[in-house]
């Protein structure tokens, strides 16, 4: 069970020997209690901003067989696709996108049948696209559908909100990729922290750091900061760092 915002705040208040909040007075908290609420969010953002690809912020289901957590279906002859179709502006876009995960497949497309066309979509820079592929794709667009083909590469739009495909798609494909959502500030007492419980102590350490600073207890603040740094490193190793492809036992038997 995930830790609620109320539980997280009360954890810090208990450490500070302050009165705990309840669901009844949570929203109307004032003074150090309101500050503690703010600092839980600040600590959360601090953790989130340290890395782009925290697994607890990934959008969709990362267990998809196509190795992406979400997909977009292409439209015949359409070059540009919004990464997050429901997003109104950049503030609600994905926080980050893994451009190495884009993968094209017919699997799951209505009317498609085996053998499915599949393939990696390679990311190229906008400059590269303009230099080598833009004119060809434009000619294709003018010539009509007969010149469309299966996309093999992708590139990013200038505002980073969309991606383009090249060549222009000749049919409907699914393009899978992985993306991470923006962190959402905790607000209601029942809001659940997305950080796994086992790593909540890292968040608490950072929040304690801010609270001890508030209380002018520099020694406690320093200790909390050191705990945070150590905890964050462990968290990163456990949640993000890749497992090595090969392992070597270099012990020597005498």
């Amino acid at each position: 069970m995930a830790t609620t915002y109320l539980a997280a705040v009360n954890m810090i208040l208990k450490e500070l020997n302050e009165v705990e909040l309840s669901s009844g007075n949570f929203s109307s908290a004032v003074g150090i209690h309101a500050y503690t609420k703010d600092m839980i969010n600040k600590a959360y953002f601090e953790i989130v901003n340290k890395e782009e690809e925290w697994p607890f912020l990934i959008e969709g289901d990362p267990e998809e067989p196509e190795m992406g957590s979400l997909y977009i279906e292409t439209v015949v002859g359409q070059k540009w696709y919004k990464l997050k179709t429901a997003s109104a502006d950049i503030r609600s876009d994905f926080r980050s996108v893994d451009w190495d995960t884009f993968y094209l497949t017919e699997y799951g497309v209505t009317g498609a049948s085996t053998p499915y066309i599949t393939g990696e979509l390679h990311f190229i820079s906008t400059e590269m696209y303009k230099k080598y592929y833009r004119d060809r794709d434009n000619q294709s667009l003018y010539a009509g559908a007969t010149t469309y083909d299966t996309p093999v590469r992708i590139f990013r739009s200038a505002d980073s909100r969309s991606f383009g495909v090249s060549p222009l798609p000749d049919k409907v494909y699914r393009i899978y990729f992985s993306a991470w959502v923006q962190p959402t500030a905790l607000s209601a007492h029942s809001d659940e922290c997305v950080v796994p419980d086992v790593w909540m102590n890292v968040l608490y350490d950072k929040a304690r750091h801010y609270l001890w600073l508030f209380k002018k207890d520099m020694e406690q603040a320093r200790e909390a900061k050191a705990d945070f740094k150590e905890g964050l490193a462990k968290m990163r190793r456990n949640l993000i760092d890749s497992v090595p492809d090969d392992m070597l036992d270099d012990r020597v038997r005498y």
Partner: protein
Amino acid sequence: MPELLPYTTVSSGGLDLSAPPYELLRTPNVALLLNNFEVAVSGGYRRINGFTLYGTTSATRPEGANKILGIEPYALGVVVCVDTSVYYSEDGITWLQINKDTTSGGKTAAQMPATAALDRPNQGRAQMKMMTAPTGRTTTTYGVLNVATGDDNLARFRIEGTGGSRTFHWEEYTTGAPTGATYIENHEKHMCVVDSVNAPSTVYYSNNNDDSDYTGTGSGSIVVPEKIVGIKSFRSALYIFCDTAIYKLVNINDASTIAIETVTARLGCVSGYTIQEIGGDLIFLATDGLRTIAGTERISDVELGTLSHKIQPLLKDILDDSADFTFASTVIRNKNQYRLFYTNESNEYVTQKGLIGTLRPNLETGTMAFEWSTTLGIEVSALASGSDAGGEEVSYHGDLDGYVFTHDSGSTFNGTNIVYTYQTPDIDFGDAGLGKTLHYMLLSIKPEGAQDIKLKVSYDFNSPSLVQPAQQDVGTVSFPSYYGTGVYGTATYGSITPIKRVNLRGSGTSAAFKFSGVDANPPFTITGFYITFVPSDRR
């Protein structure tokens, strides 16, 4: 590690409702609420005793639901005035009507019920005063109790002898003035009375050593220009309390020098039932607060003369509505206490209020001063203290429903849980601008049995800008068992004055502590507490 600082305060000084909050920051010993507590002579704030029915579980009322008009310990029991009758009881179960035509020979207890009653149809608030060996009654067993109840004849009651053959005597004064008697006092060998109905500004005084005659040698009367509301003998003078002035009658035994002297013409007394002698002085409710007569004589109408300036806001409320109240007071000598009850007959039992003033030495100056607390839930229509047959001090009070109680006894208000509250002022721990996080309290407490005290801490004058802690239990305090009372397997070991640790939560620049409860547990005394806190910021 942050520095954990200590702060200790004792509980003394009683209520202080007059000082401004910032002055109170530095007087943590006083209280802003001290309800159903009393300042203990030996220090600390003690939850008061309750009161129990006189006659305990078998108690009866003297005369149904008629309110008790007067009460006085006498002989082996108490005398009470109710409606048109006067009763005597030694057990609170059987009440013997004593306003009977006992004739000069008196009647035995067995004869009394069949003896014709001498109804007192105009009976109002009653005052009773004893003369133990007046002329003609020098060998009386218990003395003669003079009964003044308003526009009825002044009466004298006595019991002669002991056991079943003892006789009860009721005599009424019908010779002439005073034709009635409301206020009565024994002064310098004379019984002095005021008939507030027929001669409200006249003091009549009896013959020398004789409370049965107001016409013979040594008797007389004096008149003052104001309505008298009470009289009290103090040292060599009879103080005459009027509604707008105070006089004293001096040299009552010397016809050539007897005189009326003015104590003050600038203030009067609200009620004669508030006048008591305590601490070598007379205390009374004046039109500007509680005063001593000595202080009033010295500085007349200056407010400095009041001894109640610390509870002046409370007294102002009382004085503003004084016409609505029935006042009753007494002195509990073994506690150095003056108790004043002001009962509004229109109000519920539980809302009736009173004041308790304990005379004790000031910790800093050593001078004796009153320290005040309040009562809530004690309805008093009549009140008196005296000594029982064994010489022990005992107090009784009567209520509006006709019950008679042993005052200041037991742990409940006749079975009703006692609601008590002691709240300190906000304490700044030495720096009103510095935030502090409180860690724990060491409460110095003298329990007299099990208790269930609640503690509520509030920060920064109970600021709505802070999340205030919820009320918490103080927790179990081990109390000592005494030889002869402890039961093997039940009684617990405990210190006489244990220290109870109470963990605290929260922070602020100042904190106030409220100890409260509603229970039937025995009293306890809070003598002070120690707080640990961590100073933090000046935000």
